[in-house]
């Protein structure tokens, strides 16, 4: 018996009375051998004869009560989110999913050899295509790239970006430098060219600590630190002029949480007004770029106990167009399926969050 079967609630589902678009289904490469069919002879031999096992870092340690719902580990012990059959049953069918977007955090950003990282990223993308996208028409996926050398990441986007199953580029939110930096612009350029969303997602292995205060000691700190990394990235994308430079680019924050948005947007708008001459290419306050060009996956919800307070938070977002429903399967973000959506939404808000915001954003 594994740890997660003891501690985590059972995986479940709910029919909201309409098909939903699930903006965040986390999938995992079950084991390095799964990628062998998608690697060339050299790398197959290298893996067979060396200690190299691929990018084995992870942001979701087994047994942590944030990582996986009970019942998501495969009968053969395969890790949660690694089986198409289980995703079909536990997500696509259980939640009446019209389209589900697969996000695979395969830690190529933690591989220090950029050629190895690019090779493994390409193998994961071909694995996603071969094992998931071509076997299940309800699925779409995010392109795995190693952002370290952005020109190489852009090349991978060029290689697979034309496949209709890929709707997004996956960047781990923890980065070597803030993503607005012009060094990363080749990634945004390639994404814009292929009409792909660029997503920043929970986690990452860039070698930097997850806080500006240095390395914390515990996973709890690493987990909780992610929100401030997202905040840093959000403002950096605005002020470095990414939205000005790439007028059609859309950015998603996935598994970022979003209840921090109202206070954070207020703060950066306020201070931008006095400091905008540092960044005169910005044509509007940061929150306007966010509302025009960004969306956020719904989970984790960080719901306050009183539903009225949740409604206040949603009102404070200043837009009904920002949130996209997400189960974040197989991660444990809610104890019962009913908690997957905030209470007290209007019909319009529900419909937008459940499907329409993501439909327009991802061109589904």
């Amino acid at each position, binding site marked *: 018996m594994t740890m997660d079967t003891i501690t985590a609630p059972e995986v479940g589902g709910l029919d909201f009375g309409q098909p939903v678009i699930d903006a965040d289904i986390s999938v995992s490469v079950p084991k390095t051998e799964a990628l062998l069919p998608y690697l060339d002879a050299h790398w197959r031999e290298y893996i067979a004869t060396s200690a190299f096992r691929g990018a084995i870092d992870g942001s979701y340690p087994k047994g942590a009560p944030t990582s996986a719902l009970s019942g998501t580990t495969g009968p053969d012990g395969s890790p949660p989110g690694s089986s198409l059959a289980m995703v079909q049953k536990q997500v696509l069918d259980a939640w009446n999913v019209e389209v589900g977007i697969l996000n695979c955090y395969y830690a190529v950003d933690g591989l220090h050899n950029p050629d190895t990282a690019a090779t493994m990223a390409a193998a994961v993308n071909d694995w996603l295509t071969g094992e998931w996208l071509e076997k299940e028409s309800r699925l779409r996926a995010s392109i795995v790239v190693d952002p370290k050398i952005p020109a190489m990441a852009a090349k991978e986007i060029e290689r697979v970006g034309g496949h209709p199953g890929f709707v997004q580029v996956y960047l781990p939110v923890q980065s070597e430098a803030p993503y607005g930096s*012009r060094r990363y612009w080749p990634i945004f350029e390639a994404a814009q060219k292929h009409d792909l969303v660029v997503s920043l997602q929970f986690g990452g292995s860039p070698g930097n600590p997850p806080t500006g205060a240095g390395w914390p000691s515990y996973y709890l700190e690493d987990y909780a630190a992610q929100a401030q990394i997202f905040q840093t990235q959000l403002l950096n994308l605005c002020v*470095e*002029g*990414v939205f*000005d*430079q790439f007028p059609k680019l859309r950015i998603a924050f996935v598994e970022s949480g979003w209840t921090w948005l109202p206070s954070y947007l207020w703060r950066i708008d*306020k201070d*931008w*007004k*006095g*400091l*905008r*001459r540092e*960044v*005169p*290419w*910005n044509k509007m*306050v940061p929150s306007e770029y966010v509302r025009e060009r960004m969306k956020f996956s719904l989970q984790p919800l960080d719901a306050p106990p009183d539903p009225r307070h949740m409604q206040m938070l949603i009102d404070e977002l200043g837009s009904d167009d920002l949130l996209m429903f997400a189960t974040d399967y197989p991660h444990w973000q809610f104890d019962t399926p009913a908690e997957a959506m905030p209470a007290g939404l209007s019909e319009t808000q529900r419909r937008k969050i459940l499907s329409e915001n993501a439909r327009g954003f991802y061109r589904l």
Partner: protein
Amino acid sequence: MGVFNVNGSYYALLNRCPHRNAPLCKGPITGLVQGPEPYKIELTREGEVLHCPWHGWEFDITNGQSVFNPHRVRAKSYDVSVEPAGTANATGEAADEPDPSIETFPVTVEQEIVVLHIGRSKPNRLPAASGAAPASAKE
């Protein structure tokens, strides 16, 4: 109220920032920093931008418009004309006799005076912004 001489043209702004009523005219005067594209900075319109000393909001001296949101946030601005030395009446036009009801703000410009047309102030701040509406300068 502050009267500004920008390359020989005169402009007047109420000494009150529409944000938090700070003494706007005590802030520094700069040019307008513009960025036609990311990382490209151009300094234009030197001497035409006033910064609030409290939060740094920038205002176009020539019309009171804020730089960050010109159509919604403005400092109160007044028409100014330069009249021959002597007197001006309440409409700002030169008159034979001084009108005691008008406040004038003399500056030394050859033999002329700068007249603030305070009865013709431009709109200050459109509704729905925060804070109390500034008192009219007309009184």
